[in-house]
C-alpha cells in the first residue's frame, strides 16, 4: 500500500511539473524604507490570474507561461508595485515595496482587498495573523504592548488568571502551545510572574498563531503553534526607536552592516520600578526584569542569505536582611531564557526550490537561592536544547507547492538540583540533578495543490519520534485541509490534523509559577496526542473588500493527557511520576471572527462558544469534568479609530463566562486514627462543577502623535486597563458576611483600574 501510494504520488508530481513552456519567477520582497523582508505579500500575474504569497522569509516563486506577464505586488500599508516581464527563461526578481503617503488610503484599500482574497482562497484554517501595527495599538496592562495578551483577545484563545500570559487554545492546556522565536522554542514566556510576556514588540516583525489544520511543517505540541519572527533591522540607514512606559522602557537600534546587503538590530528592555522605588522612597523593591534581542543578517548573493538571532532575558528577585542576631535572611531568584538561531536561506538554480537550514540553541533555567537562620538552600533547574532543521519549499508548477523537511532536537533536562547547608538538610536532602537526555526528531512532507478553480487541497504527513530511557516513541501525524470555493467571495474549508507531544509541564493547577518544570516522556508517561477536525466558512465583504469574516467549528480529541492525582504533592517532588494519572480530553466549539485591517476604523470582533472536558478514571470518581479553563462564551471587540493622522483612540472590551472551580461545600468532624484529637475534613463536589462569575472589562488607549520632524517622531499613549474597575477573577476567598452572619465565597481580583502613560519614539 505505501509503495503504490508513493508510485501514484511520483506520477502526479512529474505530471504537475511538466506543464509546457513554464518558467519560474522568484525572489524576495523587501520594505523599501527598512530593507526588512515582507511576509505574506501577494504576488499575482494580472494576465494569467496566477498568484502566490511570500513565505516566512519573504521569498516567493511563481511559475508562469512563457511570454508577457504583469506581476503585481500588493501588501497592506504599502504602495502596489507592478512589474511587466517577458518570460523566456527563469527569472530572479527581488523588489522593494514603498509606503506612499499620497496613495496610502488607496493602496490600503487595494491591499486590503488582496488580503481578503487570500483569506478566502487558501486552505489555511485556524490561523490568526494580525499585523504588528494593530497589535501595538491594542491597549493592555501596565501600558506595555504585549503580544500574547493581544492574542488572548482572539477567538479560540482563553486567558489564564488576570493579567497573565497563559494561553489555553481550543480546550488545550497551557503546556500544549509551542512558542517559537525565530524557530527557537521559548519555554518560559512570562516576565514578572507571568504578567508580561518576554516578547519586546519593537523587536518583532510578524506573528502567526495556528490553532488547527496545522501544516505538516509544524508539530511538537497538541494545541497551538505561535510562530514569532524577529525583525531583521534597517539595511538603509541607522535608526532607533523605543518607548518609555509605566514600569519598563525599551530601546532598539538598527542599521545597515553593508547597505542593502546586511543589517543588524539590537533591542533591549528593562523594568525600573526597583530604581524608582529606591530613588523616591526609603523602601526597596526587590524585583526587576530585562531582556535583549539581537539579530544580524547578511546577503552574500541573490541566492544566499544568512541570519543570526538571539534572545536573552532574566527575571531577578533579590532581597536581603540581617536579623538582630546578625544572621542573614535572603532570597536570590534568577529565571530566564536564552535562544540563538543561525539560519541559511538558499535559492537553488531554476528558482523553484528554496531552503532554510537552521541551527538552534535554546536554554531555560532558574536558580533559587535562599538563606535563613544559618541554613542555605539552592534549587536549580535547566533545559538545554540543541536542534538542527532543514526546510525545503519546492514549487514544481503554478498550482503546486511542496514543503518538506526534517528536524532533530537534543534535549537535556536537569530538573530540581537541590543543594542544602545547615539543619535544613535533616528535612530536605540535597540531590544532584540527574540529567535526562532526550532526542526528538521529525520529518515531514506537505503538498498544496490547486486542483481546479473550486478545489484546493493541502495534505501532508509528519513522522515524529522521541527516545528516552531506552524507550522509543513514534508519532504518525497525517494532515489534511481542503477548500471549496463557492464563488469569488465565499469558500468552505475542512481540516484535520493529528499532533503528538513529547514533553509535558509539571505544574500545580492552583499555582502557575515560572518554576514549573518541563519533563520529557518517560517509560511510564507516554506522549500526548490529539486529533482535531475543523470546518469553516470564509468570506469578505464591505466597501473595498475590507471586512473579512470567518466561522469555524472544531472538534478535538486529546489522548494520554496527564493530570495530578487527588492530593498530589508537587513541590520539590523528585518522584513526580507517582503523582500523575492519565486520561483523555474532548474539546469542541465554534469561533466567529470579523476583522477589518484598514480604514479609519480597524480591529476585530471575536466570539467563541466552546466546551472542554476531561475524563480520567482515577479522578472525580471516573466522571467527566470540565477542564480548568472551560468557558462557555468568550467575546471580544478590539477597535482602533484614527480621528486624524495625529490622534487615535483604541479600546478592547472582553467578556468571558466564568471558569469552573471546585469549592469546599461541606465539612465534617473526624477523630484522628488513634482517637487522640479531632480534625475537620473537607467535602468537595464533583471537580470543576461550580462556576466563577462572568468577567468583563474595558481597556482604552489614546494616542497622540507628535508633529513629524526630520529626525524625531514621538507618540504619546494615555490609557487605562480595566477602565470601569470590574473585578477580574484571580483568586477565591471565604469571607465573613455581616448581613447573614455566615461566611461566603468571594471572587477577588488583583488589579483595579490601572492608568498607563507611555511615550514611543523613533529617530
Amino acid at each position, binding site marked *: 500500500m505505501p509503495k503504490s501510494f508513493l508510485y501514484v504520488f511520483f506520477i502526479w508530481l512529474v505530471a504537475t511539473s511538466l506543464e509546457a513552456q513554464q518558467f519560474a519567477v522568484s525572489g524576495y520582497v523587501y520594505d523599501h524604507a527598512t530593507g526588512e523582508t515582507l511576509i505574506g505579500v501577494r504576488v499575482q500575474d494580472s494576465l494569467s490570474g496566477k498568484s502566490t504569497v511570500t513565505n516566512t522569509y519573504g521569498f516567493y516563486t511563481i511559475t508562469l507561461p512563457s511570454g508577457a506577464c504583469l506581476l503585481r505586488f500588493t501588501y497592506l500599508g504599502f504602495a502596489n508595485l507592478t512589474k511587466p516581464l517577458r518570460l523566456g527563461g527563469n527569472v530572479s526578481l527581488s523588489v522593494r515595496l514603498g509606503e506612499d503617503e499620497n496613495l496610502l488610503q488607496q493602496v490600503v484599500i487595494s491591499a486590503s482587498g488582496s488580503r481578503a482574497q487570500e483569506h478566502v482562497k487558501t486552505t489555511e484554517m485556524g490561523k490568526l495573523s494580525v499585523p504588528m501595527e494593530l497589535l501595538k495599538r491594542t491597549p493592555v496592562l501596565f501600558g506595555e504592548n504585549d503580544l500574547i495578551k493581544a492574542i488572548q483577545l482572539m477567538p479560540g484563545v482563553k486567558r489564564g488568571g488576570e493579567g497573565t500570559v497563559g494561553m489555553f487554545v481550543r480546550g488545550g492546556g497551557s503546556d500544549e502551545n509551542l512558542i517559537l522565536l525565530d524557530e527557537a522554542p521559548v519555554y518560559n514566556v512570562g516576565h514578572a510572574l507571568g504578567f508580561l510576556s518576554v516578547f519586546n514588540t519593537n523587536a518583532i516583525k510578524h506573528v502567526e498563531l495556528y490553532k488547527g489544520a496545522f501544516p505538516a511543517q509544524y508539530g511538537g505540541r497538541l494545541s497551538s503553534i505561535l510562530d514569532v519572527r524577529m525583525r531583521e533591522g534597517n539595511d538603509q540607514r541607522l535608526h532607533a526607536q523605543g518607548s518609555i512606559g509605566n514600569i519598563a522602557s525599551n530601546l532598539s537600534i538598527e542599521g545597515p552592516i553593508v547597505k542593502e546587503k546586511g543589517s543588524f538590530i539590537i533591542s533591549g528592555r528593562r523594568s525600573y520600578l526597583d530604581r524608582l522605588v529606591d530613588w*523616591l522612597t526609603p523602601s526597596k523593591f526587590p524585583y526587576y526584569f530585562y531582556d535583549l534581542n539581537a539579530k544580524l543578517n547578511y546577503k552574500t548573493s541573490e541566492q544566499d542569505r544568512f541570519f543570526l538571532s538571539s534572545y536573552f532575558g532574566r527575571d531577578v528577585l533579590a532581597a536581603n536582611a540581617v536579623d538582630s542576631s546578625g544572621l542573614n535572611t535572603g532570597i536570590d531568584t534568577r529565571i530566564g531564557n536564552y535562544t540563538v538561531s543561525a539560519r541559511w536561506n538558499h535559492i537553488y538554480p531554476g528558482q523553484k526550490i528554496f531552503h532554510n537550514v537552521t541551527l538552534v540553541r535554546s536554554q531555560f533555567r532558574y536558580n533559587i537561592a535562599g538563606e535563613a*537562620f544559618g541554613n542555605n538552600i539552592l534549587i536549580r533547574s535547566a533545559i538545554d536544547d540543541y536542534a538542527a532543521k532543514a526546510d525545503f519549499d519546492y514549487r514544481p508548477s503554478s498550482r503546486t507547492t511542496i514543503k518538506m523537511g526534517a528536524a532533530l532536537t537534543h534535549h537535556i533536562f536537569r530538573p530540581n538540583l537541590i543543594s542544602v547547608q545547615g539543619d535544613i538538610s535533616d528535612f530536605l536532602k540535597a540531590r544532584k540533578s540527574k540529567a535526562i537526555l532526550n532526542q526528538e526528531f521529525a520529518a515531514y512532507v506537505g503538498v498544496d495543490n490547486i486542483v481546479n478553480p473550486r478545489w484546493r487541497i493541502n495534505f501532508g504527513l509528519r513522522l515524529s519520534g522521541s527516545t528516552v530511557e531506552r524507550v522509543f516513541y513514534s508519532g504518525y501525524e497525517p494532515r489534511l485541509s481542503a477548500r471549496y470555493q463557492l464563488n469569488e467571495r465565499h469558500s468552505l474549508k475542512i481540516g484535520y490534523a493529528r499532533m503528538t507531544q513529547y514533553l509535558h509541564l509539571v505544574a500545580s493547577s492552583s499555582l502557575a509559577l515560572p518554576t514549573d518544570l518541563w519533563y520529557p516522556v518517560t517509560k511510564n508517561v507516554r506522549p500526548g496526542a490529539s486529533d482535531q477536525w475543523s470546518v469553516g466558512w470564509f468570506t469578505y465583504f464591505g466597501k473595498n473588500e475590507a471586512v473579512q469574516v470567518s466561522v469555524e467549528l472544531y472538534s478535538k480529541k486529546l489522548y494520554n493527557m496527564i493530570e495530578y492525582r487527588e492530593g498530589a*504533592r508537587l513541590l520539590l517532588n523528585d518522584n513526580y511520576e507517582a503523582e500523575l494519572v492519565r486520561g483523555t480530553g474532548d474539546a469542541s466549539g465554534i469561533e466567529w471572527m470579523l476583522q477589518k485591517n484598514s480604514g479609519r476604523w480597524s480591529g476585530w470582533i471575536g466570539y467563541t462558544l466552546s466546551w472542554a472536558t476531561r475524563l480520567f478514571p482515577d479522578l472525580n470518581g471516573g466522571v467527566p469534568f470540565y477542564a480548568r479553563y472551560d468557558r462557555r462564551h468568550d467575546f471580544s471587540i478590539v477597535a482602533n479609530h484614527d480621528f486624524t493622522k495625529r490622534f487615535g483612540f483604541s479600546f478592547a472590551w472582553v467578556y468571558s463566562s466564568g471558569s469552573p472551580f471546585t469549592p*469546599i461545600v*461541606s465539612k465534617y468532624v473526624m477523630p484522628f486514627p488513634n482517637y*487522640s484529637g479531632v480534625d*475537620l475534613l*473537607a467535602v468537595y463536589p464533583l471537580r470543576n462543577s461550580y462556576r466563577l462569575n462572568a468577567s468583563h472589562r474595558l481597556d482604552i488607549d489614546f494616542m497622540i502623535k507628535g508633529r513629524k520632524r526630520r529626525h524625531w517622531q514621538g507618540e504619546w499613549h494615555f490609557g487605562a486597563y480595566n477602565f470601569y474597575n470590574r473585578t477580574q477573577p484571580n483568586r477565591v476567598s471565604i469571607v465573613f458576611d455581616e448581613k447573614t452572619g455566615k461566611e461566603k465565597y*468571594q471572587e477577588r481580583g488583583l488589579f483595579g483600574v490601572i*492608568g498607563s502613560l507611555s511615550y514611543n519614539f523613533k529617530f
Partner: protein
Amino acid sequence: MKTSSFGRFFILLAFLSLHTACNLSPEPLDIAIEEPPQRLVISSYWIPPQGAIFTFTRTFSALLGEDSIDLNDAYIVDRVLIDDALGIIRYNGTVDTLFKISPGVYGSLNTTQFLATDYVLELTDFKTQQTVRAVTRFLPKIPLDTLYPVQRILPNLGDTLFTFNFQFTDITGVENYYLATYTNINTLAENFALGGGLFNFNQIQFNVFSDKNNGDGMPIQYQPDFGGSAGDTLVVSLSNISKGYYEFLAAYKRSGNLLSQLTGEPVNLPTNVEGGYGYFALIRPSARTVILQ
C-alpha cells in the same frame, strides 16, 4: 534642566497611575454556592477486648465558619452531632445495639472479635431519617519485635527530632498495610475534648505504609521521623489495616498537609460508608509506651 523637569513629570504621572491602581481595588464579587444536603459520618475505634467506640456526626456547610464551630454550642451539637440514632453491628448472626455515651459518641462493650468475619454497621439518624451502612473485618494483630526512638538535635533551629525504629515480621501470603500512631499522653485529654475551636492544620501524627517493597513474610524495619520533645510520654502503636483504610488514611494525611492544601489538588477522602463519609474500621493495635529522651 528641561529634560530633568520632563523626567520628573513623567515619573510622577507613572506613579500616580500605579497609585490609582492600588487605591481603586474593585469590589469583590460574591459566588453563589448551594448548600448540599447533610450526610452522615462514621468513625470507629476498637477497645480491647470487646469494646468499641464510635462517633456519629453529620456534615455541615463549609460556610458555617471554622471559628464558630464550638462543639459545646447547642446549635452545633444539634446540627452536627447525632443525638438520636440507632446504631447496630451485625456479625456471625449476632446483633449488637450501640449505646449513647454523649451526643455524637456511641459505644459497644460486647463486640467479640472474629477473624475473616464481616462486621456490618448500620446507623439510622432519626432527625434526618437517613440510614447508612458500612462493612469491615478484623485483621490479624502484628507482634511488635522492637521499638525505640533515637533523638536528633537541630541546634540552629532549636528543635528536636526523633526517629522511631519499628521492627516486626510481615504477615505472609497477602499484601499488607500498616498504621503506626503516636499518642501523646500529656495532651490526649486536651485533644480529645470535643470542645473549643477546631482547625485543620494540626500535625497529624501517624504513618501508613505497606509491605510492597519488602519480601513476603520477611522482617520489616520502618524508621519514620517524629517531631516531639524530650520528656514526652507516647503510646506508640502498630496495626495491620485493610487496603481501603490505608487509602483513606493516606489521602487524609496528604490532605492535612498545609503545603498540600495550598498547592495540591482537591481531594475527597475515600469511604466505606455507603451514602455517607468517614471510615468504619476495627483494628487491633500492638502498643508500647515510650518516653522520649
